[in-house]
């Protein structure tokens, strides 16, 4: 088979394996860790629409997680509306907020944009912490909102609560696969192309009449919508939300780190980043925290520094090159004819501004 076919088959195999995993892994702890891993990969992928494709650095993205979580929770607790519906309501709300935030801030240069997103998430956090009742809605300030669990051993799809981990696993995995497909489609669409060009050479793009700003804001709105869905999922998984859990800079930073270490503009970047970073932080916390508290954060900091110094575009590129070499070794027929279109056949290949469309030795930015 050709290289491309091989890569495609690999991808399908991995996806099927992920869906089949709960049949092999029965431990609730490991399923839980995988669920959180997929959740972070999901949130980082939606982050990537702004942070990778639009080329700016949002450091306040958890505000959308918070909006999603609080909206669905309040609707459930006070009005009995199913969290599935609440999820959509929260997502629409988040998209609106994303649009309002994006419009003025996406015109700014990198560091200022980053700072303003931080100010937004902190400002909203302060507001929620100080407000007990917002009109008829109970926000409960810093004490947060508790979702009463259903009776032990029972689950309900309507209430978005399940007795075991498997349903949560499948939900988040489906969300993740869906969002990856969506990102891949966007990257190949007109919008993705314009975002890429806007990132590479904004003046030329503008001269050609491309309204880069409009596409950036659209990307922001889509990203906010999708991120808020994760907020509801998180609320239903942990059954307890409070300002410092969902409206926090820590979460925003972590999403950015995962994407940057994985590779910002690429689709595989968030997954690879999550696969690398989350276990490192979890396991170093588990093994070191009682003897050397805070060590897991030192490790995270060092990893960040080292990766940014030596592979600032992220670890996806070198890893994919290894994958390509494997594919080449297994391919039995020569690659397709040179007339095939230049679009990447595989979602893993980076489409970041300035990045090569096929694997090649690392270039300096022009």
């Amino acid at each position: 088979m050709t290289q491309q076919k091989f890569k495609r088959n690999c991808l399908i195999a991995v996806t099927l394996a992920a869906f089949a995993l709960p049949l092999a892994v029965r431990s609730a702890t490991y399923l839980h860790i995988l669920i959180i891993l997929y959740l972070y990969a999901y949130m980082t992928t939606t982050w990537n629409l702004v942070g990778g494709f639009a080329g700016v650095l949002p450091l306040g993205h958890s505000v959308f997680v918070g909006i999603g979580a609080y909206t669905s929770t309040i609707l459930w607790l006070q009005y009995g509306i199913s969290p599935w519906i609440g999820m959509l309501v929260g997502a629409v709300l988040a998209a609106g907020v994303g649009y309002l935030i994006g419009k003025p801030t996406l015109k700014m240069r990198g560091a200022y944009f980053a700072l303003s997103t931080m100010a937004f998430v902190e400002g909203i956090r302060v507001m929620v912490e100080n407000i007990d009742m917002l009109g008829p809605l109970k926000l409960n300030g810093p004490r947060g909102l508790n979702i009463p669990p259903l009776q032990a051993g029972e689950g309900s799809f309507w209430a978005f609560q399940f007795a075991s981990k498997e349903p949560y696993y499948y939900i988040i995995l489906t969300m993740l696969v869906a969002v990856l497909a969506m990102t891949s489609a966007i990257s190949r669409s007109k919008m993705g192309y314009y975002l890429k060009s806007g990132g590479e050479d904004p003046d030329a793009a503008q001269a050609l009449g491309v309204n880069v700003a409009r596409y950036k804001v659209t990307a922001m709105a889509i990203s906010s919508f999708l991120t808020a869905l994760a907020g509801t999922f998180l609320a239903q998984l942990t059954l307890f939300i409070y300002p410092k859990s969902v409206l926090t800079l820590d979460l925003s930073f972590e999403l950015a780190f995962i994407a940057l270490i994985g590779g910002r503009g690429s689709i595989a970047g968030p997954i690879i980043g999550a696969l690398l970073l989350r276990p490192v932080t979890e396991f170093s916390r588990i093994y070191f925290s009682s003897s050397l508290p805070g060590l897991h954060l030192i490790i995270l900091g060092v990893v960040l520094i080292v990766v940014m110094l030596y592979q600032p575009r992220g670890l996806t590129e070198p890893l994919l090159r290894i994958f390509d070499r494997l594919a080449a070794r297994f391919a039995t027929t020569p690659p397709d004819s040179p007339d095939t279109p230049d679009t990447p056949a595989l979602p893993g290949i980076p489409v970041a501004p300035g990045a090569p469309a096929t694997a090649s030795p690392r270039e300096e930015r022009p």
Partner: protein
Amino acid sequence: MKRSHLLAAVLTLCLTVPAMAFAAPSVKVGNILPLSGPSASVGQQGKQAREMAVEEINAAGGIKSLGGAKIELLYADSKSDPNVGVTEAERFINTEKVHLITGAWNSGVTYPTTAVAERYGVPYLVPVSVRDTITERGFKNVFRIAAKDSWWTRDQFTFLKDMQKEFGGTLSTVAFVYENGDWGTGFAAQWKELVKASGMQVVLDEPYSSSSTDLTPLVNKIRRAKPDVLLLVSNAADAILLTNTLADYKVSPKVILGSGGGHADPTFLSACGANARYVFDIVEWEADVNKPGAKEANEKYRARYGTNLTGEAVDAYVAMYVLADALERAGSLDPAAIRKALAETDYKTGPGMIVTYDAIKFDESGQNRNAALAIVQINDLGKGLERITVWPKAARRTGYTPVFPMPKK
């Protein structure tokens, strides 16, 4: 291989296999604590207190009804984050297969992690977290040693009433100043209810951010409100900053009453010095309590770790003894048996019993019905600053008369 080697291997096997059969199982206790992050200081104290207790228990022969089984402590850092706490609780139960869990200091972490333990049927002993609702959910596996926070606030107001009766004079105005988190706002909500029956007028209701860089505006607000009573809920850094700033600006209410936590932190006295004099604080325990073994335990802890035991550390210490006592009575590692033994606890005497009250007994909701609080006053009696138990009157240190009201600055 050579015959002699084979013989040696077989002999070794013959010796170890029976030895393994006779080796007592160890009891695994998982402890969820904030070992890093903003509550790292108290998390470390909880860890130290547990270690000291378990060392003593194991040295005295472990759990005899389980063949001398030793208690093995495992720790998980919650970073004061409920999500991390939940992941760690699941890991303790499913991977580490602990027999018991204790934790988690932050009520916000204890609340969801006890739910996890309840779902799996693993007994969970809460030494410190005060939020009322932890034992109000009808759970069967959750037991708490500390008093509920509604008891703390109730005792604070009873103390104020008793002081007025004992020393005369009236307290007519009160200011509520509290940290803006879960703990502070919870206390404040209860104060607002309790104050209605007290006849005092609320002149200030001010939440503040624990990580404020400057508390002077807050102090000036207090100064202008001129309250008779200043009720505080503070974490350590802000308790220190607030006390120093209050002294600097010569704010002189008749009574300053803290709520434990930051005011009880070991570094509070050294960081504030004379500014902390005459401040009252409500705690579970104090080093001068009139109980056998209390002084020795405190000396030992102090020698090892450099600071006095705090109420929370004592709760952790006695929790280990309560666990050991329950395990002795259960005689098995079956969770249902352990749970039953815990529910039947009536711990009155023993090396761990250095708390102020007479027995640890859990009611149907798992709450220790005897948990009692004490009020201390910080004063210097010539030997440096110390915390002196003043209330209830029966527990007051002999020979000490509380200074009430505070002298004006």
